[in-house]
Structures are given as structure tokens and as C-alpha cells.
């Protein structure tokens, strides 16, 4: 692997929703090696769709996904890709399907050939890394929303991915868990792409921002000072401005 070969590359990627003519994504080009990237954009602009295409869950109408310089073609390629990229879903209930936490975290390593003992050790270590000591035998469905999110992250980290794709990880987290997640993400070695509407969260965890505009993935200008000024009270309450 030459040094200028990105970990992941998208080349002229286009995607149309099934049954629609207009494109959701149009000739997207993108590369990432070890950056920490934030992805922001209005609802329905295709952020989640982009992640699904990268993971091979949706098929691009045109263009290519390249991992370490190699074009992914069939299901077999994507299976290999999936062992190197971790995708955190928007809804943790979709991602956690085993009855206990340990089984869920060990599921990935087991499928990738770890022995049950290795998988167990690796999973316990991953849980500890996220401050989830003693969670092994907890029943998944009884966890709180924030705990579920962290366990879902553990199920991905236990596969030792090289790149993380996180879909709105800070959604519906209480302030304390959100803070904890920020610290965890800052402490990880992996590159990541984070979809979020929460700019402060992105500012604390990413070094570059992208957005989807006019069906294109666009790099945002860096460090552009921006200020809202509006007549409203309790401006220190967290809030959001519409488009």
C-alpha cells in the first residue's frame, strides 16, 4: 500500500432511489485515510444512504467503492470490507440482537474466526475500554438508551475496524452519556466519519466537516466563523435552527 493510497475511496458514485428517476447522490468523489470527519446535512439528503452504499448494503447505480485501492465488486469483496469498517446504526435496537451484552460483543469476532475463548477475552477488554466493566451478563433489552448506544459501539470496536461510520451517535443521549461518548471517540485510534446534526458534538470529535449539497459530498470551508443572532430568550438552552 503506497502512502498516498487512501483507506477508503469513492469514485464517481451515483445513487437513485429504487423507482425514482432523480438521483439522490450524483458523482460523489471522496477519500479518507486516517482523518476524523463529520458529515452534516438536512434530513433526507442521503447521509445514511451513503453509509449503506459504502458498506455494500445498497448498490450504487454508478461508480465505485475502493478499499485500500481495491475496487469492491461482488458480495465477497464487501464481506471483506465489512470486517474492516464498522457501521454504528441510528437505532441501537436494530443493532443489538443477542440476549446478553457479551454475546453481542463477541458475535463479530466469532464470525471472523476467533475461538470462543479469544472472543470472550477480546469482548471483555473492549467493554472495559468503553467503561462498561461488569456489563457482560446484562440483558441487552434492559439497558437504557445511552447504555445500548455504548454497547452497540462495543460490538463494532471488538472487530478492530480501521474506520468507523457512525450514524447520529449522539442522538437521544442524555448530556452525561454524550460527554462520555465524546471522550471515548477522542481516545480511539481509528479514523471515523460521523453523521450528526449536533455541531458541537462534531466540533469536539472531528477535524473536518463535509456536507451533502446538490447531491454532492462537499468539504466545508474550515473554521468559518459563523454567528446567529436572534431574538429569543434562554439562548443558553440547546437549540437548533431550521434551514
Amino acid at each position: 500500500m503506497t502512502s498516498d493510497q487512501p483507506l477508503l475511496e469513492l469514485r464517481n458514485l451515483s445513487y437513485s432511489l429504487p423507482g425514482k428517476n432523480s438521483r439522490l447522490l450524483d458523482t460523489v468523489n471522496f477519500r479518507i485515510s486516517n482523518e476524523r470527519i463529520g458529515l452534516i446535512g438536512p434530513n433526507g439528503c442521503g447521509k445514511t444512504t451513503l453509509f449503506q452504499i459504502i458498506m455494500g448494503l445498497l448498490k450504487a447505480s454508478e461508480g465505485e467503492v475502493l478499499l485500500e485501492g481495491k475496487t469492491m465488486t461482488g458480495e465477497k469483496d464487501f464481506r471483506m470490507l465489512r470486517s474492516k469498517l464498522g457501521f454504528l446504526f441510528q437505532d441501537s435496537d436494530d443493532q443489538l440482537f443477542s440476549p446478553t451484552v457479551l454475546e453481542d460483543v463477541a458475535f463479530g469476532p466469532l464470525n471472523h474466526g476467533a475461538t470462543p475463548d479469544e472472543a470472550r477475552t477480546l469482548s471483555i477488554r473492549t467493554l472495559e475500554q468503553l467503561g462498561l466493566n461488569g456489563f457482560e451478563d446484562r440483558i441487552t433489552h434492559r439497558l437504557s438508551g445511552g447504555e445500548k448506544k455504548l454497547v452497540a459501539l462495543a460490538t463494532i470496536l471488538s472487530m478492530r475496524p480501521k474506520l468507523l461510520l457512525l450514524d447520529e451517535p449522539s442522538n437521544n443521549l442524555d448530556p452525561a452519556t454524550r460527554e462520555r461518548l465524546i471522550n471515548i471517540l477522542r481516545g480511539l485510534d481509528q479514523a471515523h466519519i460521523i453523521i450528526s446534526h449536533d455541531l458541537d458534538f462534531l466540533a469536539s470529535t472531528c477535524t473536518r466537516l463535509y456536507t451533502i449539497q446538490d447531491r454532492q459530498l462537499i468539504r466545508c470551508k474550515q473554521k468559518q466563523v459563523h454567528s446567529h443572532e436572534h431574538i429569543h430568550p434562554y439562548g443558553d438552552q440547546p437549540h437548533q435552527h431550521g434551514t
Partner: protein
Amino acid sequence: MIDEPFASGSTLFHKRDTRVKLVGAAAISLVLALCSSFLVAVTGCIITAMMLILSKPDLKLVSKRIIGVNIFTFFIWLTLPLTYGGSETLTFSMFNLSMDGIRLAALITVKTNGIFFCILALLATSTTASLGHGLEKLGFPKKLCFLLLFSYRQLFVINQEYHRLLRAAKLRGFSPANTMHTYRTYSHLFGMTLVKSWNRAERVHQAMLLRGFNGRLIPLNQSPPGKADYFFLIIMLLISLFLAGLSLFCYNSL
């Protein structure tokens, strides 16, 4: 709500390996289910009741569950004395009650409740998750065990989804009655729950694929049963043997 209220605790029943408890529960249930003498049924029922007490359950909850379990027994008490027939009868104003029917209903009641106590003491003291794994280790088909474990995990999600929809219907003035509108509404609520389950299944399957699932489910190892577990198993089997022996003795002396 669905819950596992008896599974948390630290009595000797909670600490035992689920495999051992499953085998013990099956053995005792089997002997009790097949016995036909009052002596055995009552002895068994007393033993399982003592087991239940040792597992320190929430007695209020137990009494609630007893009602649920005895609905069928209630039906039998309602019908058998009137319909069983036989030569001996007990006449109550206008009813002729069959003595055989009453005897059978009483026997069934003792047996049903004895087995209920046994299940409560042995199975309800484990989480469903560990029961599923126990079954798998005991050699039940892997697919079936995973089906059990996955259903168990999704149960709560689906139940919640259904209840959120039901709540929406109630907020719009829905109150159940004997009308077609009611049946249609329940169907729509449940139909929508099915639609959501179906779509969720797709997403969960994707989640499995993303973690390298390729059509083979690999279980994690469980620690093997310890000395105390084997000792416990022997006691359970001895109880079953004792009841079985008593059963044979009663049968022969008839």
C-alpha cells in the same frame, strides 16, 4: 409488562447451572405428570412447594401466577363432576355429581400445581437467555435455540411498539367493545406491528451481515457445571426416583 420477576435473586436455586435445573425440572415434571395416585401427587406437591419456598419468590406474584395456571383446572372442576359419569354419585339438590369426576379433578389440581411450583423454583429462577443456552448445551437443535434467543430479545421491542400504537388509538377515543370497529382496529394495530417487525427483521439481518454473519451461528462457551451443580442434580434425580418408586408401589398395591 413482560418481565422475569423471579430470575433475580441469590438463593441456591438461582446459583445453579441452568442445564442441571432443566434436567431436574424435566425429571420431576415427568414423574408428577404421569403419576396416578393421590399419595404421590401430594408428596410431590409438598416437595416442590418446599423447593419453591427455598427459592424465596415474591409470594404476591406467585399467587397471581397460580390463578393464571389454574384457569384450565377451574374449567375441569366446572365440567368433570357433572359430566364424568361413573357409578358413585353425590346428589346436590338437582345435580348429580360424579365421585370419580371429583376425584380426578382433585388429582389433576394437585399435579398441575405441584409441577407449577417445580417450574417456578427451577426454571423461573434463570433468565430466558441462560435457559436458551442451557438447552443448546443439552443438545437441542442450534437453530431452534437461536430462534428462542432472538425471539426473546425482540419480544420487548415488539411489545413496546404494539403498546405505543394502542396508546395512540386510545388517545383518539378508542374504547374496546363488541363491535366490528373494535376487531378491525385491533387487527390494524397488530397488522402494523407485524409490518414493523418485518421491516425490523430486515435491518437486524443487515446488522448481522455487517458483523460477518455468513449463515453459521457460533455459540460462546459456557463454564461447565461445578461440583455443587452435580450434587444438586443428584438430589433432583433422587427426588424423581423416589416419587417414581412410590408411584410404582401404589400402582402395584391397588
